[in-house]
C-alpha cells in the first residue's frame, strides 16, 4: 500500500513538473476566428533580417518592422514611413521627412536617428546597400523627423533599395538595435510595424506568435505589395514550424492551419479537389534553378567549356522530374529570370535551339578538355538539386565528360562550395542552388550577378565588361535606359557564361477559402490586409 501511495505521489509531482512551464506562460489568447495560423517554407531560425539573408527572417521583419519606402505592384518605390521627400537640383542630396505618429511597439517615437542607424547597418550587409554606400558621403540628421542622404554622384536606384522586398530589406529598427555590429545578431525585436513579436508565447523551432500592434497607424492608400495601408485585420498571426509535407496538407484540410506557403506538389491534387482550399501562385516571378560553374579550375576556366554547358542543359527536364505539373514551371532563357522587369531575349539563340549534346561535346573538345573528373556537388535533401545532379551527370557523360557526383545534404554543399582549391583537393566544378526570380531580376543586388573575380560569389567569375554594365544599369535614370543596360548585360553574360539556369518554377500556396485579402508578391508573404470571411 505504501508503495502504491508513493507511486501516486511521484506521479502527481511529475505531472505538476510537466505542467509548470505551461502554467507560467499561459495567457488569454485571441479567438480562433481572429487568429491566422500559417506554415511557411521553413523555420525561423534567426530573427535578425539584416544579419541573415534567410527569407524567414525577412518575413518576421515584415510583420514587426516598417520600411521607409515600399515597392508597389508595379515595382515602383512608394513612400511608407516617409511623409515627404525631395532630391536637390544637383541630384546629390535626398531629404526625407517622417510621418507623424510613428511609434515603436515599445512606445518610443520613431526618429530620424533610428532611420539613419538602420540604413547604415543594412548597407553593410545588403548588396544594393553596399553599391549605394560607395556613393554616399554623409547621412546627416536634421531634426527629430528629418534626415538626409548625401551622395558624391547621382544615384537613381536609392529609393528602389530603400523600398525593396528582397532580402536584406531595409527595415527600420530602434537606434539601440541598429547600432549593433552588422556581423552580430540583435537580441531585441522591437519595430514599428503592424504586428508585435510575442516572445512569451513563441517557442523556438515550433511556433512564432505575432500580435496586432494597437499603436500602428497604417497609411490611407490601399495595400499594394510593400506599400500602402498595412492594416492588421487579424489579432494574432502564428507561424507554425511544421516540417512534414503530408501533415501540413492534412492540417490544412482539417482547418487546423489557414495558410500553407509551399505545399508539396505531390499532394497538390488532393488540395485542388478540396472546396475549402484555394490554390494560388503568390509569387509570379518564382524561383530559378541555378547551375553554378567554378571559373578557377579546368574545364570551366575556359569559356568554351562554359558555353558547352548552355547547349548541354535541357530547359525543362529537371523541372519536369521535380515538379511534374507543367502549370508550375517554365523554361527561361533570360539571365534576369522571366516575368520580371528586366526579362529580355538578348543573345538567347542557344536557348531557342534547345538541348544539343553534340554541340556541347564539340565545345568541350575545343576547350581542350582532358578527361579529368568534373566534380558535381548535389544536395540530397533538396529535390530539384538531387534531380539536377543526376540529369547533369547523365548529360555530361553523354558529352564525353568524366563526372564525379558528390552528394551530401545542403549543409555539406554550402561548406564545400567555399573551397577554392582544385576539385581533387576538396574543391568543386559545379554546384546547384536556387534564387528567387525577383532577386535575379536585379543586376546589382544579387551577389551572383557580380563577376569581380576573387570578390565574386562562389565560382568567382571575372568579367570587367559585366561590372561596367552593372554600374551602367544602376546609373540609368529611366526604365528604358535600364532595360537597354539589362539587354547589354545579358548579351555579354551569355557570351562569357557566368553560370547556367535549368528552369524556373512557380510554387503555389494553399490557403483556406474563407481567407480574404491575401497579397501575392515576390519575396515576402505579407499578413497585413488578410481577414476571414463570415
Amino acid at each position: 500500500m505504501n508503495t502504491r501511495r508513493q507511486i501516486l505521489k511521484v506521479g502527481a509531482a511529475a505531472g505538476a513538473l510537466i505542467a509548470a512551464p505551461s502554467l507560467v506562460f499561459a495567457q488569454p489568447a485571441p479567438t480562433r476566428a481572429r487568429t491566422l495560423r500559417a506554415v511557411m517554407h521553413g523555420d525561423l531560425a534567426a530573427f535578425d533580417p539584416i544579419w541573415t539573408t534567410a527569407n524567414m527572417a525577412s518575413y518576421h521583419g515584415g510583420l514587426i518592422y516598417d520600411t521607409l519606402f515600399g515597392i508597389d505592384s508595379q515595382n515602383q518605390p512608394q513612400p511608407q514611413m516617409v511623409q515627404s521627400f525631395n532630391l536637390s537640383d544637383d541630384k546629390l542630396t535626398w531629404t526625407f521627412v517622417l510621418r507623424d505618429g510613428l511609434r515603436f511597439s515599445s512606445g518610443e517615437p520613431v526618429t530620424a536617428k533610428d532611420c539613419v542607424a538602420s540604413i547604415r547597418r543594412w548597407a553593410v550587409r545588403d548588396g544594393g546597400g553596399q553599391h549605394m554606400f560607395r556613393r554616399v558621403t554623409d547621412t546627416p540628421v536634421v531634426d527629430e523627423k528629418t534626415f538626409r542622404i548625401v551622395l558624391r554622384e547621382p544615384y537613381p536606384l536609392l529609393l528602389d533599395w530603400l523600398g525593396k522586398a528582397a532580402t536584406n530589406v531595409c527595415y527600420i529598427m530602434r537606434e539601440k538595435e541598429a547600432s549593433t555590429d552588422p556581423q552580430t545578431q540583435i537580441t531585441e525585436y522591437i519595430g514599428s510595424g503592424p504586428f508585435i513579436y510575442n516572445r512569451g508565447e513563441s517557442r523556438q523551432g515550433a511556433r512564432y506568435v505575432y500580435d496586432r500592434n494597437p499603436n500602428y497607424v497604417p497609411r490611407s492608400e490601399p495595400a499594394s505589395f510593400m506599400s500602402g495601408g498595412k492594416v492588421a485585420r487579424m489579432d494574432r498571426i502564428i507561424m507554425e514550424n511544421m516540417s512534414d509535407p503530408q501533415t501540413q496538407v492534412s492540417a490544412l484540410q482539417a482547418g487546423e492551419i489557414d495558410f500553407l506557403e509551399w505545399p508539396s506538389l505531390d499532394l497538390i491534387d488532393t488540395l485542388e479537389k478540396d472546396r475549402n482550399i484555394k490554390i494560388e501562385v503568390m509569387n509570379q516571378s518564382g524561383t530559378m534553378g541555378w547551375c553554378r560553374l567554378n571559373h578557377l579550375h579546368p574545364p570551366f576556366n575556359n569559356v568554351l567549356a562554359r558555353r558547352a554547358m548552355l547547349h548541354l542543359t535541357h530547359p525543362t527536364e529537371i523541372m519536369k522530374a521535380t515538379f511534374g505539373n507543367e502549370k508550375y514551371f517554365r523554361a527561361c532563357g533570360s539571365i534576369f529570370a522571366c516575368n520580371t522587369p528586366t526579362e529580355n531575349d538578348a543573345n538567347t539563340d542557344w536557348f531557342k535551339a534547345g538541348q544539343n549534346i553534340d554541340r556541347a561535346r564539340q565545345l568541350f573538345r575545343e576547350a581542350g578538355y582532358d578527361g579529368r573528373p568534373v566534380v558535381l556537388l548535389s544536395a540530397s535533401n533538396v529535390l530539384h538539386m538531387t534531380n539536377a545532379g543526376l540529369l547533369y551527370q547523365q548529360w555530361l557523360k553523354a558529352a564525353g565528360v568524366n563526372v564525379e557526383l558528390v552528394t551530401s545534404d545542403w549543409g555539406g554543399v554550402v561548406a564545400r562550395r567555399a573551397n577554392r582549391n582544385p576539385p581533387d583537393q576538396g574543391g568543386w566544378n559545379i554546384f546547384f542552388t536556387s534564387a528567387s526570380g525577383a532577386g535575379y531580376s536585379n543586376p546589382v543586388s544579387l551577389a551572383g550577378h557580380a563577376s569581380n573575380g576573387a570578390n565574386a560569389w562562389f565560382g568567382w567569375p571575372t568579367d570587367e565588361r559585366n561590372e561596367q554594365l552593372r554600374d551602367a544599369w544602376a546609373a540609368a535614370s529611366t526604365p528604358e535606359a535600364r532595360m537597354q543596360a539589362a539587354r547589354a548585360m545579358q548579351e555579354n553574360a551569355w557570351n562569357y557564361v557566368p553560370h547556367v539556369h535549368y528552369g524556373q518554377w512557380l510554387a503555389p500556396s494553399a490557403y483556406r477559402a474563407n481567407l480574404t485579402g491575401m497579397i501575392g508578391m515576390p519575396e515576402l508573404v505579407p499578413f497585413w490586409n488578410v481577414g476571414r470571411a463570415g
Partner: protein
Amino acid sequence: MLAYVIRRLLSTLIVMAIVGIFVFLLLHLSPGDPAAIIAGDNATPEQITGIRQRLGLEDPLPVQFLRWFGHIAQGDLGVSIFSNEPVLKLVGQRLEPTISLALTTLLIAVTLAVTLGVLAAWKADTWVDRLLMVVSVLGFSVPGFVVGYLLIYVFAIELRWLPVQGYTPIAEGVVPWARNLVLPSVTLGLAYVALIARITRASMLDVLAEDYIRTAKAKGVANQSMLLKHALKNAGVPIVTVIGIGVALLFSGVVITETVFNIPGIGRLVVDAIAKRDYPIIQGVILIFSGVYVLVNLIVDLSYTLIDPRIRY
C-alpha cells in the same frame, strides 16, 4: 546498495564525457558550416568568414572543444548559434511534450503489451496466440510514419474525432492534452507493444512450465490469480529489462513521431538543429539523452530488487 548507486552515477558521468567527446568530433569533422547557412545563399565568402570568426568556428578544434567542455563543466550547455537562446532554455521548452509523449506511450504500450503477452502465453499454440503474434510482428515491421499517416487519415481527416497534429499543454486542460497525444502515442507505442508482448509471452511460457505453477494448479488456484500473482511477477525481470532497453527505441521513435504529428518536443529540436548544424543544441541534447538513458538503466537495475527479493546490490 547506496555504494552501488553512487558507483553507477559516477559511471554515468564517464559515459557522458565519452559521448561528449565523440559527438563533438563527429559534428565538427563532418561536412557542413552553420555560418554559411546563417549568412544565406546570397552571401559572399568574406561575409561567411566574418560570421565564422564571430562564432569562434575559425579557432582550432582543440580550442573550441576546451571552450565547450569548460562551459559543460559549469552546467552551461551553451547558446544556440541561430536563435541566441540558451540550449537549456530551449530543452526546457521542449521537455513537456516529449515527456508527455514518452509517458503516455509507455503507459499504453506496457499495459497493452503485458496483457497481450500473458494472454498469448496462457493460450499458447492456439489461434489466439498465433493471431496475437501475427499482430505483434506487424506492429514491429510496419514503419511508424506509415501507421501515423493511416491513423491521421482515418481518425482526423475522415472521422474528425482527433486533431491531425500539434500539442496542447496539460495546463490548458487534460482532455485537449490527451486528445493530441492519442494518435502519436499509439503510433509510437505499436513497435514497443510488439517487442514487450513477445518478451512477456516467452518469459511467461518459461515460468508456466515451472514446478511451482504445476503445484498451484494442483491446489486449485484460480487461473487469474495463478497468471498474475504467481507467474507474472516471476516473469517480470526480463520484461522490465526489455522496457528499459526499449527506452532507446523510444528516443529514436520520438524523433519520427514528433515530426509526423508536429509535436514540438526534443526530438524535433535535435533534428532541426542537425539540418542547420546548430552544434551547441545537438551536443547538448545528445549529452542529455545519453544521461537519461544511463539513468533509466540504473532505475531498471534497481527495480529488479523489488521484483525479485533474491537480487541484492
